């Protein structure tokens, strides 16, 4: 892998982002405001503050870091799905990049690095909103950007590989409908996984989002985690590495048959 071309792929993404960042920042601010207002304040007023399963924090504090991790997942999966399909098939910008010194490894790695940049921005903006809601202390919100980034990348890399092997965008819609959205709802974002029926709990524990939520919540609020923090992080990191390693040959087969 060459550093120069990889950096230039990041730069090209950044340049294209200059056209759309305003809209995307608005989404980044508005969506946590809506969630925290509706779920945290609205629904949360019905939830007993002292509920043991919440680990001794109020409901809005409980869901704020969970939402941060889940938003990182959604942002990353979204960025690794439709824009990647556009680069491959609809606009063919990936073909343009590959006609230059940029190779498949640099293209995939540079795009993932760019998603990482996006995730950090999203996590910091989101964190600021949670602080404004009084849900999370400022230092916790800033530190939580780290695990949120890791959570997002655990999706960005495998979803890139998935998109590379998807002929049609209906496969992307299916991924969200049957993968991302259920995870969003059942991986500990809104309620502890321990509240799920017993048979469903192992499934929830296997999802990367569960580990992302655990880690992000622990860092943001200073709570203990189900596993040692390094184990959660390792689990997520494995998704990043395996996803990245799978995305490169998948993209090569797709773009350079």
């Amino acid at each position: 892998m060459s550093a120069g071309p990889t950096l230039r792929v990041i730069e090209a993404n950044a340049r294209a982002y200059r056209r759309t960042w305003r809209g995307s920042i608005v989404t980044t601010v508005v969506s946590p405001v809506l969630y925290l207002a509706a779920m945290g304040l609205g629904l949360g007023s019905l939830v007993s503050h002292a509920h043991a399963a919440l680990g001794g924090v109020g409901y809005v504090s409980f869901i704020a870091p969970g939402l941060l991790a889940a938003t990182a997942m959604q942002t990353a999966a979204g960025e690794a799905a439709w824009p990647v399909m556009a680069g491959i098939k609809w606009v063919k910008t990936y073909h343009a990049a590959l006609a230059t010194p940029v190779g498949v490894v640099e293209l995939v790695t540079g795009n993932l690095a760019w998603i990482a940049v996006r995730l950090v921005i999203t996590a910091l903006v989101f964190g600021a909103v949670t602080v404004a809601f009084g849900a999370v202390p400022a230092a916790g919100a800033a530190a939580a950007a780290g695990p949120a980034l890791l959570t997002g990348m655990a999706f960005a890399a495998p979803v890139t590989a998935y998109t590379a092997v998807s002929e049609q965008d209906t496969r992307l819609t299916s991924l969200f409908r049957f993968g991302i959205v259920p995870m969003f709802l059942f991986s500990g974002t809104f309620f502890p996984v321990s509240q799920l029926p017993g048979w469903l709990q192992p499934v929830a524990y296997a999802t990367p989002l569960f580990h992302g939520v655990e880690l992000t919540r622990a860092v943001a609020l200073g709570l203990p985690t189900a596993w040692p923090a390094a184990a959660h992080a390792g689990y997520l990191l494995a998704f990043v590495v395996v996803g990245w390693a799978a995305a490169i040959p998948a993209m090569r087969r797709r773009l350079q048959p």
Partner: protein
Amino acid sequence: MGDVSTIRAPSRRERGHEPLVEAHSLTKRFGDFVAVDGIDFAIRRGEAFGFLGPNGAGKTSTMRMIACVSPVTEGELRVFGLDPRRDGERIRARLGVVPQDDTLDLELTVHENIYIYGRYFGLPPAVLRERAAELLDFMQLSERAHDRVEPLSGGMKRRLTIARALVNEPDLLILDEPTTGLDPQARHALWDRLYRLKQRGVTLIITTHYMDEAEQLCDRLVVMDRARIAAEGSPRELIARYSTREVVELRFPLGAQDAAIAALDGLAERAEVLPDRVLLYTEDGDATVAAVARRGVEPESTVVRRSTLEDVFLHLTGRSLIE
């Protein structure tokens, strides 16, 4: 007097005979399907080299292997003396590529498309700003420099793709159907620009379905058919080898062609029957026209013309370009 033995003969490279692109038994398969079937060719520095052939002949597959964006299945390929398998990045740094399908970023402006592409080559921003302006001027797109690409006409997008391909001042420019979708004026303007690039020493590889274009631009060309090379040479050589000096084109009233064909037997060296006309290949067109009349055949229209590359193409591939 110096020792004669120290005056060495110029190397192949110095004489400019070192092939810039060289292929031996070059093969491309997609699964079991053979798209390029063991072809050989050598492209010299500074020449304009054409690949002609009907749809599906394997032209784009060959271009993509040369451009190092499609792995060689079998055989040997050298570009700038380097192996695409190992040195793809170094080769691509010196190539300009105009792909058959545009790959422009539609959300960006005309200028940004050139700028970002140039950045992929690692060119500094200051150089790129200058070069983008020059190239847009060269391809007559300066007025649209700050417009988004999406609403541009097809021909303008094509011109932008060509401008973009020149941003790294390539030694070798690969053009896959560069003028498809251009109006006649834009085509002639592009020929003029390609000719100027050639004078500057840029080597050109061109595929096209326009025979006049190939005749105008190409020093040498190959005709591909069904994954193989059917013929190779300069346009004039090919015409001399595969066609006669003149061609008589006969058109008949609707439905009358089949009946007339039998009567034309033996009048020309070779006849080609197309859906809408009959071509008679002959050394002397006027004599053949007179002979047609003597047989009592009355075509609706008769044209005598010189042989062109199109006739060669027809002969070699058995297919008309206008299918």
